[in-house]
């Protein structure tokens, strides 16, 4: 069994890779999202919906051809990190590398800095601030790699975030109602067609985190539990039956997918959280193998 501790050099290499990853995520739509948008356009019958979806397709093509950002909102940089048990990484140094990479991308590309202090509204002009980038850690047994997923989380969709402590007596029925009302009530604000992230159970903080984690799953990939996958389908059907449509202007596709993540909860609780991801569902994945090999993907 290897247990190579990361060398100092490797953190520098990872910082550079994070800078590349951030910019790439803002320019290159994940293939699963491209597919979902194409399918939505093909099945759209409402004229306004078709106009909106073809404008989106054209925009993705322009971004590809001209090497431009898909959307101007560089988002809040949110990172999900999976640390393999035998990866040999030092989390403090990795966190530092991620912060450096975020600043480097912002300053050298340059990118719009979208991050400010909530108290003074001062913008450091480097997309970082107190406790930002947002970094979530997960520790995975029996693996020797590290994976870093970046989600530059756009604010139009992030502002459409909902949480409620439902009652156990409200059941799954209450959860469905809450999700449907939240998504449809958001209208065109989160730039539909959206990916709906739903967190169920846990404590309030975990529930919200699960909703965010749900949106980083490849678009339309079902939850491994058949029961939960069934719930995802039911919610997707209900949301799309509303006819809210692309940009809230009417059409068949309001959501490209609904992703549910859940956790055990307290006997007297029934928490539900909704985090919406816009059609510009940008993400990038960095994999660092134990031997130092680095790959960039989605």
């Amino acid at each position: 069994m290897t247990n190579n501790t990361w060398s100092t050099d490797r953190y520098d290499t990872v910082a550079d890779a994070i800078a590349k990853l951030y910019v790439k995520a803002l320019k290159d739509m994940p293939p699963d999202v491209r597919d979902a948008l194409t399918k939505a356009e093909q099945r759209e019958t409402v004229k306004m919906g078709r106009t909106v979806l073809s404008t989106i397709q054209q925009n993705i093509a322009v971004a590809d051809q001209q090497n431009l950002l898909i959307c101007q909102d560089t988002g809040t940089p949110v990172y999900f990190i999976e640390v393999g048990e035998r990866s040999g990484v030092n989390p403090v140094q990795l966190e530092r590398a991620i912060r450096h990479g975020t600043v480097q991308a912002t300053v050298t590309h340059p990118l719009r800095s979208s991050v400010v202090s909530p108290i003074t509204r001062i913008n450091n002009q480097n997309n970082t601030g107190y406790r930002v980038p947002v970094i979530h850690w997960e520790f995975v047994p029996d693996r020797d790699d590290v994976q870093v997923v970046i989600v530059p989380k756009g604010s139009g969709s992030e502002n459409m975030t909902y949480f409620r402590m439902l009652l156990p007596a409200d059941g799954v029925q209450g959860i469905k109602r809450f999700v449907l009302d939240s998504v449809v009530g958001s209208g065109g604000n989160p730039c539909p067609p959206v990916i709906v992230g739903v967190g169920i159970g846990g404590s309030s903080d975990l529930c919200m985190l699960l909703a965010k984690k749900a949106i980083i799953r490849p678009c339309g990939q079902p939850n491994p539990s058949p029961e939960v996958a069934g719930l995802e389908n039911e919610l997707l059907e209900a949301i799309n039956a509303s006819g809210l449509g692309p940009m809230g202007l009417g059409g068949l596709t309001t959501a490209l997918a609904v992703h549910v993540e859940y956790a055990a909860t307290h006997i007297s609780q029934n928490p539900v959280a909704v985090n919406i991801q816009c059609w510009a569902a940008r993400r990038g994945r960095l994999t660092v193998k134990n031997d130092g090999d680095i790959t960039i993907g989605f």
Partner: protein
Amino acid sequence: MTEHCVTTPLTDDVIMTFRAGDTVTITGHIFGLRDATLIRMFDQKAPIPADLSGSVCLHTAPGIKMVGNHYVKVSIGTTTSTRMNRFTMGLMEQGVKAIAGKGGLLEDSTQILAERHAVYLGLVGGTAASETMQIESIEEVWWPDLLPECLWKFRVRNFGPLIVGIDAYGTNLYLQNKSRAVERARTFCF
């Protein structure tokens, strides 16, 4: 659905030909502003440094780079307009003829636009790559301390298509469509 190609500044006569659901393409100039810009204008009552009469004001905060002391576009798109709903009257008093953004405006703004013969033009949110190509240059920038929420003046060619989301006759496509969708959702049986 009519397609309009117009040149700025916009007059009442032109505005009154726009009907909800039409599309508009703009050549000329548009101003860029958003939360912090509008707070400075109307809450802090700073003197407005540009003549906005007949103008199109786009809710935006561009990504830019400095080349010498010139502002050069990197990525220019739009942002959610409903956040800035309470500033509609202020903009109308400056003679603004079209507010552009995404997501629409609310009921009170719909009425104000009708009274003032002005419209709301909706972009497809997130389509900054296309919009950046349609913006020829950043001509002027005021309040650089607010970066990226300065007051911007862009020269544009065939900027659009923008959807007439709220016309000057009181039709608001966003609210109409949303209330239909909310009603359908309310009666949906799981």
